[in-house]
């Protein structure tokens, strides 16, 4: 039963890819729209990472965007240093960027995942601030990094194929992980860490697994992003960005992969849609609406808008 569903998913995905490819080739979709679509796919993979960490395993991280940024900057630096401008050499860099983010996630995770809820929130928020400060001052290390001026001149390598299929593969791997014994342990950890421990499961190791995987996904997303928009600025990776991803995971449904996908699409669609139809002052208004939405969701459907009610 499970195998069939995966195959169906792959089939649908390939269909979507073909549709998109045709639409772009025939210029039915503008370049601008193409960029938005690619950005949406990137948002999906990063949000998926946070969903692993928070939605499934219950670890409240307010610093996810920092790992997104680490992946982005790593990818940009490596490509600049190795003079990579073509797609074939880019593929391993995407993975490497993910690994860098994952590794930093590992180092941070070991101490920080010991903490519970509120303290974990502050610790991850703090880490996000640290990374922001680091990026803002990065021109002290290398002028290339640009500091608070931003990192310019990144080669544009990201295209539909690489984005779509990288993310598709990662989604499939994530589904496999969730449907394995490890995925079940993540769920039990979210439900009751102590009881999970009493079954002989190394809770710390599992939490780290989820965290590192989530950071890896964020790093991959960051790499794809860097070579799509070709310009990086530290403010793209701050607490507000982390909250963006958090909102997507919460509203889309914690512990629901399809929910994350849908919510990401809606989210980017909404923001971009509004950007085109509303004058700029109204764009800031979204940060008045979003918190209200968040609060209402917490009060009415804390597990997410697209998910069944669970037992308290």
């Amino acid at each position: 039963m499970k195998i069939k569903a995966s195959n169906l998913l792959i089939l649908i995905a390939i269909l979507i890819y073909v549709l998109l490819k045709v639409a772009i080739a025939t210029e039915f979709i503008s370049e601008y729209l193409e960029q938005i679509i690619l950005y949406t796919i990137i948002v999906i993979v990063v949000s998926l990472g946070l969903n692993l960490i928070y939605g499934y395993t219950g670890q409240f991280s307010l610093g996810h965007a920092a790992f997104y940024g680490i992946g982005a900057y790593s990818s940009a630096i490596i490509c600049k240093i190795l003079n990579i401008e073509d797609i074939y050499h880019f593929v391993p860099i995407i993975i490497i960027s993910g690994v860098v983010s994952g590794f930093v996630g590992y180092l941070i995770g070991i101490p920080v995942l010991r903490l519970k809820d509120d303290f974990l929130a502050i610790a991850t928020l703090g880490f996000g601030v640290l990374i922001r400060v680091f990026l803002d001052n990065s021109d002290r290390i290398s002028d290339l990094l640009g500091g608070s001026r931003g990192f310019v001149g990144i080669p544009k390598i990201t295209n539909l194929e690489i984005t779509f299929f990288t993310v598709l593969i990662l989604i499939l791997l994530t589904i496999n992980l969730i449907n394995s014994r490890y995925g079940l342990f993540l769920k039990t950890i979210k439900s009751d860490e102590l009881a999970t421990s009493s079954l002989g499961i190394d809770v710390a190791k599992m939490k780290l697994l989820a965290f590192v995987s989530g950071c890896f996904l964020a790093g991959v997303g960051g790499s794809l992003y860097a070579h799509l928009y070709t310009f990086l600025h530290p403010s793209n990776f701050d607490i507000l960005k982390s909250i963006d991803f958090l909102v997507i995971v919460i509203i889309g449904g914690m512990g629901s992969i399809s929910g994350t996908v849908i919510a990401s699409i809606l989210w980017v669609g909404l923001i971009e849609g509004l950007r085109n139809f509303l004058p700029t002052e109204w764009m800031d208004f979204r940060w008045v609406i979003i918190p209200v939405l968040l609060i209402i969701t917490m009060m009415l459907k804390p597990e997410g808008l697209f998910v069944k009610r669970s037992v308290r």
Partner: protein
Amino acid sequence: METTAYILQQIVNGIQLGSVYAIIALGYTMVYGVLRLINFAHGDVFMLGAFFVFYLINKFNFPLVTAVILTVCGTAIVAYLIEKIAYKPLRNAPKISLLITAVGVSLFLEYTLSLNIFFTPNYIAFPRPFEVKSYDFFVFSVTNIHIFIFLSTILSLLLLYFLIYKTKQGKAMRAISHDQQTAALMGINIDNIISFTFLIGGALAGLGGILYSIAYPQINVFMGVMPGIKSFVAAVLGGIGVIHGAVLGGFIIGLAEVFVSAFLSSTLRDGVIFLLLFIFLLLRPNGLFGKRIEKV
């Protein structure tokens, strides 16, 4: 260059900044002690304190003392309302929901007020309602502002101490902090005591806002974000839930920030605070005065 005078002067500045952080941290640690909640909106109540007092003095020409009293009452009420509207409905919800709501309240306050129809996101200069007097001590100088802020903090600490350890309400607060269910069974009105805690916390935040804007006379809708987070770090450093810990933590953070700013670079000062936080979380998660809590 870096002479002893310079160092001593920075210590004075650090104590001033630390005093403000200490007052804010007191509010955090109190609410955390009673509700086990990081009130992310606390920093924004601090911001409102600065704005209230600014408008009362500069737009409505209230005398200083009246403006201060009105402001402190105003922020107390705002904190009370936040609790009643946003936190109380979620009192029995999982902790995360409350946290997210707190973040939501904070963002909502900041961004609503930053709209052009309200205060805009710009900085507004704050002309001080009194003269700054400077007193020279050997090689450094202390202004009346330094003294006023420091004394306010110490006074707040003492008053809070008296409140928590010598009054009935304080006893109730401590009871709830230990065991909310049992406290309720003992006849303590949980809702009232929690509201009371937020009133005090809001007043403290407001006071902090007043002091901060007197010391650094520029207000801005987002001014509460960093001080809010740093003050929480201060509360954690000192041992969350412990009052004198919050004050000591505040001074440590204030001094650290001023010293890094003076001797390294001002752009690094936010980073050092969180480095400190990480170190403490790793080595002494219960803070300097915190108690060890067993898991089960």
